[in-house]
């Protein structure tokens, strides 16, 4: 993994998720700098990665007062957090179904390796490959050579269990100590999953990853909806040779996102909370469309 930092690239960007009390301490211990405590001792905090653009270009320099966040329509007091406090944890998801030939698979392996190379200090990656079988090749790790070796290892081919793979990737994302993002490539829509579209969208609501997807060709399945729901992006690409560049662009763009945090106030109840995020002065805002509260974990 490349041990470089990008000067001046400290603009925060995160997905949203519900942060239970126990997490901040672990997060602070593992990755947050001592000068930037992420969370005070609050019961819950909601964090949202927000991409703000004007004229299709990122808008730098915004402050907390520039953001307006509504939780189920109720305005919330927001804080802005530094991205350096919680590095990115990226789940790389690669389609290895039989519709890809050997040359295309080589391009895809190269794209995965490029993404791993692009990770900065403190950032980690997990790897999921899929055909009709889902293979969680690695949980979050900063061992770049090992990850790249896994990416380069051929895997069996079969049908495309895209929904099951997306579910697995988002569940892997729940183990993130940083900001989880799923970067997924598939060359087609689902043909073999146990989970239907509704189920995988439900997984997206209950987990915190931002899902960004790149597809080849016209078949897209649930991916646009998944990206929209989680505040991610969906891209169609005509050539696998360009997927590596797309992956790098997604990661770079994610780093530039703002990380907005708030403690829900004036809203109660388990279940789905709709979020509205606006920016003073206008602009194109991309963020999760909501978050899931509860239920409390039950023993099994």
């Amino acid at each position, binding site marked *: 993994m490349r041990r470089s930092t990008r000067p001046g690239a400290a603009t925060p960007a995160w997905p949203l998720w519900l942060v239970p009390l126990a997490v901040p301490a672990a997060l602070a211990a593992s990755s947050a700098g001592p000068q930037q405590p992420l969370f005070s001792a609050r019961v819950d905090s909601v964090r949202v990665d927000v991409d703000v653009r004007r004229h299709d270009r990122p808008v730098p320099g915004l402050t907390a007062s520039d953001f307006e966040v509504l939780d189920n329509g109720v305005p919330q007091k927001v804080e802005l957090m530094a991205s350096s406090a919680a590095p990115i944890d990226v789940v790389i998801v690669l389609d290895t179904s*039989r*519709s890809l030939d050997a040359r295309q698979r080589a391009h895809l392996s190269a794209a995965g390796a490029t993404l791993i190379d692009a990770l900065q200090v403190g950032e980690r990656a997990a790897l999921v490959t899929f055909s009709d079988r889902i293979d969680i090749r690695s949980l979050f790790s900063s061992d770049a050579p090992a990850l790249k070796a896994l990416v380069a290892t051929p895997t069996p081919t079969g*049908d495309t269990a895209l929904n099951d793979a997306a*579910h*697995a990737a988002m569940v*892997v994302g729940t183990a993130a100590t940083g900001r989880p993002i799923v970067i997924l490539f598939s060359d087609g829509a689902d043909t073999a999953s*146990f989970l239907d579209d509704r*189920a995988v969208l439900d997984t997206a609501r209950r987990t915190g990853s931002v899902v960004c997807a790149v597809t080849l060709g016209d*078949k897209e399945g649930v991916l646009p909806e998944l990206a929209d729901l989680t505040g991610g992006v969906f891209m169609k690409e005509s050539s696998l040779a360009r997927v590596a560049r797309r992956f790098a662009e997604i990661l770079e763009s994610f780093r530039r996102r703002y990380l907005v945090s708030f403690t829900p106030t004036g809203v109660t109840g388990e279940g789905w909370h709709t979020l509205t995020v606006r920016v003073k002065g206008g602009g194109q805002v991309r963020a999760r469309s909501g978050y899931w509260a509860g239920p409390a974990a*039950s023993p099994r």
Partner: protein
Amino acid sequence: MRLGRLVCGAVTVLSLTAANSSGSPAASVPDDPPTTAWTLAVWQHVPGKADGALATVAAIPHWRAANALRRREIVEDRQFLVRALVLHTDLAIVQRQAAEQRGTSPGERAGAGSFVVEDGTATGRREGSPHWAVAMQIAVILATWRHADAHPDAPPDADARRIALSWFHTVNALFLHWAEGSLRYVDTGLRHYPDDAGLHLYRGAVHQMFADGRVQQFLTGDADARGQSDAPQSAAVERARAESDLRRALELDPTLTEARIRLAHVVGDGGQPGEAVGLVQEALRAGVPPFFETYATLVLGRNLVRIGRLDEALAAFDRAATLAPAAQAPRIGRSQVALAAGRTADALRALTDARGPERAGPAAAEEWAIYFRVHDPTATVQLAALRAEIK
């Protein structure tokens, strides 16, 4: 040699003429040489064997057999018809296997025959055997067959009708087992047996297959396929058709457990998970063979999740994992349940826990992926029973 090993050309016509041990067709042999050879082959073929009789008939244009079947002396001989039915079925199976071994190439995309679909994409076409049509012609004759001495108003011969129905069941089970979707044989069967529960079950299973993501993805991207007259329709339409047939099957035979499980799958995916749970629980209470228990338990689990009965869903997925340790779907289901219950660590553990044994190959494919291919009784058992009709 078993049928599965035959490659056309491996047997010769000469071996046929040397063997004539299964009956005496002399009185009914027409004098047209190819038809004579066909008639002899019908009497000589040993069911389930890739023998010389098959090679003989393979070398005769199939339309000669079709024409011969219009001759009175042939259609009056029930035993001959049954033998011919089995022979042409065996030959069609052999020719299908040979076509499968030849494979397809992109150049065959525009040809006739069945689409070969891999991962939702057509990779070629496979030539079909014309002997399916000949066999079906015989089955239709048998479905309405009367003894020559019978009164014109007498009902068709019950035994001949039973054998013809057995053929329709067998062929539809075979096509589903091969994952080859065709309504031709089941529709013809239902024209002659409109109240047969088994045929409604098979037609429901064909529509279930047409609603499957693999077929639907193929249709989305293939204008040629959409233009076919008997092309599958949208998933919603195919599910509705499957539901209609499966409900009819259960009306006709409430003990048809397979139909109940399939109906549960269809209605659950169609937005009625509560009904699906009731249906599949009833099927499981009745007792089902191992494959259907796994399939039914997975259908049960996914629909219990949909209605929020998570503890029961987890029990269902645990049961499915016990029945099929190498299967992935139960682990996905367990993960889904844990996540819905707020136990994210368990959700991840369900996916990363050590797996059971790896799949042994396509025959041991993921249970969830082959639901439309397996039947009770299996296609193999039904084919053996059909062949056993030749005494």
